[in-house]
């Protein structure tokens, strides 16, 4: 496979293939996607690991993300400092988790983090309200929203502390028939 790409060394590519669910070609394609967001910022040589970070505004404007109501949360969860700005590593991480090959548990873990808006390791009622409002674009009345949230907590809260822990969430989500097919971005 002695191609003339000089962006990564062979070791880097191998390491990325070990750490993500992507093939070599997909990694290169993702790199180009990343670079296309800001060609002036991203160098074409990653062999010495330049510390380049793209701001959230650029990441969120990707066609894959721009219509997603949770795009900001996704970017925040996967960025290193939680601010939505991403390095190439974060970028690869994000699409690796959202790829088709990623196992259910990994996806569930990150989905939990995405829906945990206030980062307190629990999905509490305010997180649920935010989720519903984002999903319906504020078209439900406050009573309906709170009813839905209560129902969700009633259904999924096993340990009955009024909020969903990661275990509750996983317990619920592994049974969901559509989770794998919807929580994935093909790139």
């Amino acid at each position, binding site marked *: 496979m002695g191609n003339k790409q000089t962006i990564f060394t062979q070791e880097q590519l191998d390491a990325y293939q070990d750490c993500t669910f992507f093939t070599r070609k997909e990694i290169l394609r993702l790199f180009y996607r990343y670079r296309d967001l800001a060609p002036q910022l991203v160098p074409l040589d990653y062999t010495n690991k330049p510390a380049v970070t793209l701001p959230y505004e650029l990441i969120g404007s990707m*066609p894959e993300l721009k219509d997603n109501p949770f795009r900001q949360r996704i970017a925040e969860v996967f960025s290193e400092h939680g601010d939505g700005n991403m390095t190439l*590593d974060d970028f690869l991480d994000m699409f690796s988790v959202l790829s088709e090959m990623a196992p259910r548990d990994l996806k569930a873990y990150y989905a939990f983090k995405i829906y945990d808006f206030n980062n307190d390791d629990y999905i509490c009622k305010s997180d649920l309200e935010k989720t519903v409002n984002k999903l319906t674009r504020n078209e439900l009345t406050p009573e309906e929203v709170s009813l839905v949230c209560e129902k969700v907590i009633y*259904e999924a809260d096993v340990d009955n502390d009024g909020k969903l822990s990661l275990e509750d969430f996983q317990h619920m989500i592994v049974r969901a028939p559509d989770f794998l097919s919807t929580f994935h971005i093909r790139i």
Partner: protein
Amino acid sequence: EDKGEDESKEEDNGSQQNRASRRKNYQRKNRDGKKAREEGSQKKDRGKTAPTKDQKESENKEKKTTKRGKEGENKQKKDRKNSTSSASSNSSDEESLSEEELAMLKEQVEQKKKLISTMRNKPWRMVKKLSVLREAQDFVEKFEGALGKGKGKKLYAYKMMMAKKWVKFKRDFENFKTQCIPWEMKIKEVESHFGSSVASYFIFLRWMYGVNLVLFGLIFGLVIIPEVLMGMPYGSMPRKTVPRAEQATAMDFSVLWDFEGYIKYSALFYGYYNNQRTIGWLKYRLPMAYFMVGISVFGYSLMVVIRSMARNANESTADGDDDNFIFSWKMFTSWDYLIGNPETADNKFASITTSFKESIVDEQESNKDENIHLRRFLRVLANVLIICCLCGSGYLIYFVVKRSQTFSKMQNVGWYERNEVEIVMSLLGMFCPPLFETIAALENYHPRIGLKWQLGRIFALFLGNLYTFLLALMDDVNEKLAEEDVVKNITHWTLLGHHNSSAGNDSTVTPPPLDPADVPRGPCWETTVGIEFVRLTVSDILVTYITILVGDFIRACFVRFVNYCWCWDLEAGFPSYAEFDISGNVLGLIFNQGMIWMGSFYAPGLVGINVLRLLTSMYFQCWAVMSSNVPHERVFKASKSNNFYMGLLLLILFLSLLPVAYTIMSLPPSFDCGPFSGKKRMYDVIQETIELDFPLFVAKIFSYVANPGLIIPAILLMVLAIYYLNAVSEAYQRANAELKKKMQMQREEEKNKRNNKASTNPMLQDLEDLLTPSTKTESPPKQTEDKKIESPNGTSPVRKPGRGEVLDGSPMAGGRGAAFIPPSPVFVTQPRTLGVRAPYPGQPRPWGHPLGPVPGRGRGQPCY
């Protein structure tokens, strides 16, 4: 630190602990074996394991993670040190390395390797993954070589190298394989515009294309190409020549379009093949190959369909139909992350909102059936109407096919008369589904159930049409068979007469052979059947494409451009843009495939046509969808119906197997065309091959195996096996359901337990406070206490007295008594029973006295 990392670390640590303890064991052994140099490290080891245990108990998470992290590093370092020392000693005297040490090292290496292979499943940041990966790789690299000794070492190193190479090869191969999957980007584009349901059709189409490519390879590689290359050339014998009468028009387009003329006498159809046992210098047994390929087409298709069904079923094991999580699932899995198009996103938002509202309404009033009689009547009416439609369409087709048989006997019939069957079938396929949909509106089913009904009805329509067509075709074939007998005699006499006449003229010279074009032919029913199927397929393709072009593209153009000068809004109003009809398209694809399976035995070229069709429709439909369709208003999920489609495909495969098997097994092949001509039955070719080409005992074995005395028990055995397996799977299912129920109950119980704990605790607090000062009046608390324990009566008669004893025995030690109480509130499950079920009258209440009046009770009670 976040929790996930913590967890994974914990997991890691667990394994490390495991290892440590094992090592301890091993070291203990070593001590016996007086190994002084391990002493120091052993101490260290012990010192290290102790804190881990302590830490496990400690609740301080923050501390734990950091410490553990450090510790993990420490340990790794230590490991390395440890093993470096052993490695160095290893180099000095290899024999001193004990077996256990080796095993341990090996295990560590294995563990690291496992870590490397599962690295991608860890929810860590990339930086961390990379560094851990590098560490692990270094470790493996370093100590792989140390394993094994002397010659074994080299061998081991070699093995390791090969393993590495193998991994690399596998990875490259994976890369290659993913590159070979076509249309990934196209489907992705469709997916992002229309959501996963529309894309599922294209994925199905691609899968079908793959299957057909394999069938195409089989048929072309093993039948058509050998015949063309090695068989007798065109014009060498009657079956490979256009008859004299047709020769004038054989090249006309109108004739070719009907698959007559030169096409009829080509390798695309059954009749062209010669019955010579072997052809060419390879001695290729063509009739045998033809038969085997015909069978293996079905065999392969069956295998592929069933395998993919099983895989689908495996993947979707988790999805129960339990409706415990309606709202949670709606909340967390309804957004399709694939959507990358604002319009689709709008639709999705709207559909999610409506689905939430629907569930809320459902929740609020679960039963609101107002007029069940009217609805039942309407449903019966709808079904009657639809059955009428189905019968009508069946009769229409039968009528048309009958008529076409009379047309086929007449000369110079028009284009319409010749293609009447195909036209009528296509029209029925076009207009009946919308009609069904209109009728189904009467029924007022839930859309998901409605869709299933609709699919079932269209399926029944298509199936009915197909089988009517087949029956009519069967009539045709029988007529042809009768005709054949007559022709056979004529041919025989003609040949004989020709021979005689030439012999009579000049007896010394061998007679010039009769020109193959002049020999009278039988009707060759196999080719007729093949032509019917090819025609049906082609007209189906054309109708599909024209429907797309007119119904989608022209309509979209009209709506788009005429909208500027029209009196109402065309885009939002009546015609609007078309939606992509997933179910119709999938069904069309499935039926088309059924036709291919049925026809491919008599028209080997049919699969080639189908491959072309699938290829073009991939591009054409992708283009049409992207250019002229709008996303669905209510996007229904495709994931679940996937196996539904596969099931339909399997059914069609089975149904198309039946007529082919029937014709093969019970109709005599034509006498003058096809690879089986001259035989009584088509399957005789197998017997012939066995008798002539295999040693005698094979024939003997075969005759034994084919004995009904053996086949019937075999079938019986299979039936029994099916019955047994079915029973087993049912038992498993029941066990599964039981477990599910148990889990559900447990969950509920736990919930209630916690619920009550939370609500009783303050109450108990009050109780406690009041208990300690004095014991006063008893009646109200007694009553409640009583109720509390007896309301769930039956759940725990055992523990009731226990609790009574506790309270009774130590009325003053309220604190301790309270400590016993928390587990018991489990029994307070049903709040409603409180009011309904009175405590047993006249039952002694040994525990009642010490309890004081509790004002807090009043507060606590509403909680139940």
